């Protein structure tokens, strides 16, 4: 929201590490850091619709997200690692989720849970963001309407896999990318292309 993060987001340590080429030291450090990160991912739940019900089921005793290190729901963005958008995102909430994402500290990841968060789903209308990736970067998309708890857990394990592949040598991973001059995260034509109707929606014209 107009906050210029610039280079302040990258500490001096990050710059030293990202100037290295991969070697024995960095791979061992990667292993340790990534093990620590995957083992204690604190989710920031952003539940807007029925997906949030499945998300709660995932967090409750039967499926028990805590088995994978997600022990604590961090309802403060500043103490969380993974933003889970569970449900559709109306345009009115777009600046809210963007602000939450900006408030989260690095390292941070985003899971888009369900059809509506990932693509707009059945809500191909004037009020709904057609995929939260037009607003915040997304790491894992979980399909389903809503996804079963097993689906979300699989998505979380995929995120673990992704984190285990990260390296401190790649400084771009932890770079903050604020909205650009156009007020968007992506170029406007990319947003338009991402929001194109698909499936049954193509039978509706823009004026229908």
């Amino acid at each position, binding site marked *: 929201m107009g906050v210029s993060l610039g280079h302040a987001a990258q500490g001096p340590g990050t710059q030293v590490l990202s100037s290295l080429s991969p070697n024995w030291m960095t791979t061992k450090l990667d292993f340790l850091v990534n093990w620590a990160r995957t083992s204690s991912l604190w989710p920031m739940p952003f539940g807007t619709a029925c997906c949030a019900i499945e998300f709660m089921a995932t967090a409750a005793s039967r499926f028990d997200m805590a088995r994978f290190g997600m022990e604590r729901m961090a309802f403060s963005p500043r103490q969380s690692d993974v933003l889970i958008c569970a449900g559709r995102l109306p345009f009115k909430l*777009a*600046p*809210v989720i*963007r602000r939450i994402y900006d408030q989260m500290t690095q390292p941070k990841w985003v899971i888009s849970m369900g059809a509506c968060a990932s693509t707009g789903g059945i809500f191909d209308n*004037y*009020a709904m*963001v057609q995929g939260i990736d037009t*607003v915040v970067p997304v790491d894992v998309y979980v399909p389903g309407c809503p996804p079963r708890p097993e689906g979300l857990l699989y998505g979380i394990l995929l995120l673990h896999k992704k984190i285990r592949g990260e390296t401190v040598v790649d400084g771009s991973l932890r770079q903050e990318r604020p909205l650009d001059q156009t*007020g968007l995260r992506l170029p406007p034509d990319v947003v338009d292309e991402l*929001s194109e109707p698909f499936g049954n929606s193509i039978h509706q014209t823009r004026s229908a």
Partner: protein
Amino acid sequence: MNPSVDALRREFGPLIGRALVSCGDTIVYLDAGRVAEVLRWLKETPGQQYNYLVDVTAVEYRDPERPLEVVYELFSLERRAPLRVKAELAKDRLEIDSVVPIWAGANWLEREVYDMFGVSFRGHPDLRRILMWETYAEGHPLRKDFPLRGRFSRAEQVRQALGANPEAHYSMDELSIADAYHELPEDMRERLARGERGVIPEPQRERGGE
């Protein structure tokens, strides 16, 4: 037919239009110019006592010749009697008196009708959009001439949405109350002083030599 219709005809005569029964509910059409007066009579007259305003909404029909209807769902808690009152508005003059002075609960209902259909309620204390954000510029979504996916491109919609101020949905009254209790953050106090409702930055079309 609800006996209130005959009572209305005796009291107001030509202000009362046609009345019909649909699915067991009585619908009575009023003259749109004096709707507040008639509704106040329906609320306050002994024997009528429609003291509960269930809903205010509006209907636009696909036939472009047909006027837009503002619908008042009334209910008498004492007599357990419902009544549906409608007022027809020509589409080029969507104005009607507010009933907030009669039922305070009409406040948000009329704001919703204004937001979705563009009907202006004369005398409403705080007529702002309620569902869409306040800087929403595409029009009134439930009108028949409104395209399903909105009027702007998706990129423009996302840009305007991201430019909206998430805190701007508080009314100036609410902000003033928070300010009186010293609970208002500094930046919001400044906005309150300016009376600002959120700003959408203009797109900068410098990139790529467009």
